[in-house]
């Protein structure tokens, strides 16, 4: 799994203050701002393109893959050809169509967990920041504890007790265990926003806490919330495929992780069918790269200090400038 990359301030060290000059924009314009930023940032563009391609594949798989992914209809162990873009596997199934049709399951998991986990993270992170006091302390402890307990072994145990997870079991288990990192980030940012002038103004106006949170705070944190969604989606893809790979998913569903499971079971690497094992992993890597690039780009959008520096023509003698 990718480890969390952080340019956003965490609890223990004071980080740079949030540079938000556009803090007063309502939600709609916040998204427009995001859109503009995506277009101008190269990483974001690449990431978005990758994601869009995969979404299209998931929505309309029959457009590029004519063959059924499950029918054992073809000669086994064919190599790459125009009829079978990635060859056939040991059971005579077309590998390319398996991957194409499998995209659906992967993206469903990614988006379901992404939304659910981010939802929980927003709820808990912001609530902790605003409710303060004992709520803050206890939610904090809960978040920190879940952050520290190693998640993958916990998922393995849960899936093992569930005796083989359907996709729903996977989604539920991953959602319930992986929200803590993003919750922490959201709480940190919410804390820094708490004393801002515009919020003070809202409080003085007499607005209720819930209104402040929903109308003022959340739109300001749009870019971080989107980044959280991307982080959670990325981890969902990696965790879910890993669980399916080791056999804790449902081996009868069509998904990249289960294709890997069958490949590993049939010693694909050693029997001269390496594509069977390498191709699904490559798909996961590319999708993950899409999420990760977008995520990193959002880090930069949110924290201008990290934005790439356009190198200015220097005079001879100076090495670099910050």
């Amino acid at each position, binding site marked *: 799994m990718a480890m969390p990359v952080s340019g956003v301030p965490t609890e223990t060290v004071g980080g740079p203050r949030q540079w938000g000059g556009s803090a007063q924009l309502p939600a709609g314009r916040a998204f427009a701002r995001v859109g503009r930023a995506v277009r101008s940032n190269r990483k974001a563009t690449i990431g978005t393109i990758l994601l869009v391609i995969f979404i299209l594949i998931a929505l309309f798989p029959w457009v590029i893959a004519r063959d059924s992914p*499950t*029918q*054992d209809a073809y000669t*086994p*162990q064919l190599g790459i050809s125009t009829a079978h873009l990635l060859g056939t596997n*040991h*059971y*005579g199934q077309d590998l390319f169509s398996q991957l194409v049709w499998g995209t659906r399951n992967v993206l469903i998991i990614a988006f379901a967990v992404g939304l659910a986990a981010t939802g929980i993270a927003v709820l808990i992170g912001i609530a902790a920041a605003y409710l303060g006091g004992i709520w803050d302390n206890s939610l904090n402890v809960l978040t920190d504890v879940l952050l520290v307990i190693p998640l993958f072994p916990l998922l393995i145990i849960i899936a093992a007790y569930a*005796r*083989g997870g359907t996709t729903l079991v996977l989604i539920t288990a991953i959602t319930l265990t992986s929200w803590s990192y993003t919750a922490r980030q959201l709480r940190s940012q919410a804390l820094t926003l708490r004393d801002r002038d515009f919020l003070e103004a809202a409080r003085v106006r007499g607005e209720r806490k819930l209104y402040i949170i929903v109308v003022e705070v959340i739109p300001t944190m749009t870019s971080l919330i989107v980044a959280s969604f991307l982080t959670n989606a990325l981890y969902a893809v990696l965790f879910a495929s890993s669980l399916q790979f080791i056999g804790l998913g*449902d*081996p*009868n569903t069509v998904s990249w992780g289960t294709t890997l499971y*069958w490949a590993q*079971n*049939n*010693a694909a690497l*050693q*029997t*001269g*069918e390496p594509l069977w094992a390498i191709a699904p992993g490559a798909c996961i890597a590319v999708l993950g790269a899409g999420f990760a690039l977008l995520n990193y780009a959002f880090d930069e959008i949110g924290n201008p200090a990290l934005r790439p520096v356009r190198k200015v023509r220097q005079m001879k003698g100076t090495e670099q400038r910050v």
Partner: protein
Amino acid sequence: MRRLTRYGVIIAAGLLAVGCSAGASSSSGSGSAQTSTNSTLTISNENGALWTCGFSPLNTSDTLLSVGFVYEPLVFVNPLQNGKTTPMLATSWTWGPGNKSLTFTIRQGVKWSDGTPMTAADVAFTFNLIKKYPALDLTGVWSVLASVTATGNTVTMTFSTAGAVPYFYYIADQTPIVPQHIWSTLGNPVTNPIAKPVGTGPYLMSKCSPQNITYTANPHYWQPGEPKVAKIQYPAYTSNNTANDDLANGSAQWGAQYIPSIQTFYTARNPNFHYWFPPTVNVSLLPNLTNPLLSNVKVREAMSYAIDRNQVSTIGESGYEPPANQAGIVTPTFSSSLDNAALTSWGNSYDPAKAKALLASAGFHPGAGGIMTNAAGQKLSFTVINIGDYSDWVASMQVIQQDLKAVGIQITPDDLSNTDFDADLFFGKYQLAYYDQQTFGPSAYYELNNWLNSADTAPVGKTAASNYERYSNPATDKLLNEYATTTSTSMQQSIMNQIQQVMVTQVPFIPVTEAVDWYQYDTGPFTGWPTPGDPYAQPSAYAFPDNEQVLLHLAPK
């Protein structure tokens, strides 16, 4: 800055160099773990766990490590040659009148590995020990035995029933003889791990660690000049891949492995690498006969005709497990028992048109989604339980599912863990199941008796011993019980023919493929391997006491 990158490159190069040299020097041999010295045999049998270094021949987890190597039975009975016998610790035997007693003459001059002579008293002791501690009675011999006594150099066994004839296999071949002078002092033989086994067999267990067991030749073994292979290594493999790799690179010579794509992976690497998978029992689709729709014989017949067994064998089992037949006789192992009349009356085993015709005559017509429905609105839609861990069974089930769909029968696989599957199967909580019998004997009777004898079944909600589909027919019981009382081969064959008629007319279960013994062998360093042309024993390293026969035939080149 530049200096730093230079350092970095040097360090990285250094690490690579160390790594590569470590790699190169060890693999400069032949890429193999060890080039086997001529008289060390390495076995590749993946067991899924490390060794616990217990060697009790009466403990199911340890039998495969002790019986055949250290312990021996009275007689070797070869299931692959229709029960041909080879005297081991017993030199001869005779059935008493009415087959109600059996007397063995025990071989003289055999010594235990600690030097004490082996006598008939040890044999009697072994059987009476099993009687005293039922947990040791792995094959249930005391369900037919009445008494076992030793007199001089003979042992006489009396039976409580006339139907004990098939139990000869379990008594003579499947019961390892243990030394009285050691086991009588053990305390509880059920829990004692027997870390230092003492037996009459060709090998001594000389070293055991969780990762590997080493056996060395027993210098006092009673067969002169045997064994010819001086040392055996039996590593504990926890994964199939590693076990298969060791076979493929020659560091193990005797395999008991399931190897995917065996030609590319194994036989193509070396002309001395061979494999042979002799079939043993049927892997079958079991209908729960208490289910109202499945109790209709026409539905079951239709299912049998709808399944393309060749395709299941080729795709699901990679061609390793041959297609089975509805008569239930495993071929070629028991081909001599096959009743051609039964097979001819059954006709072509793959006949989807006939399947559809049968369903139509049973009152089914294609309904919503193409699923066969009858006038009462009942659909032919079932769940089938399967063991999720057995990926080849899961793959086979996918083929079966597609085949049945083509005739309008919908099945949904439910892949369960081993324990869940067992629970559902034993208690009858399923509609269809995919399974094979776990025990095997020297004729087709053993398997079919397990499937069809009503003594081995139980109502749904109680545990069935082996008749999981809940089949019960007094006429069939009569046939099976009659078989158990006779030693006449002609009588046995006539009964088997009638049983096969039962299989094709009543279709109590549907055999799909034939499970096999897994076996790979390397003829480079050793000769004497069992082959299809010379099937002198079951060739798998985990089959006991057949493994002893293999070890006695092997010789270094």
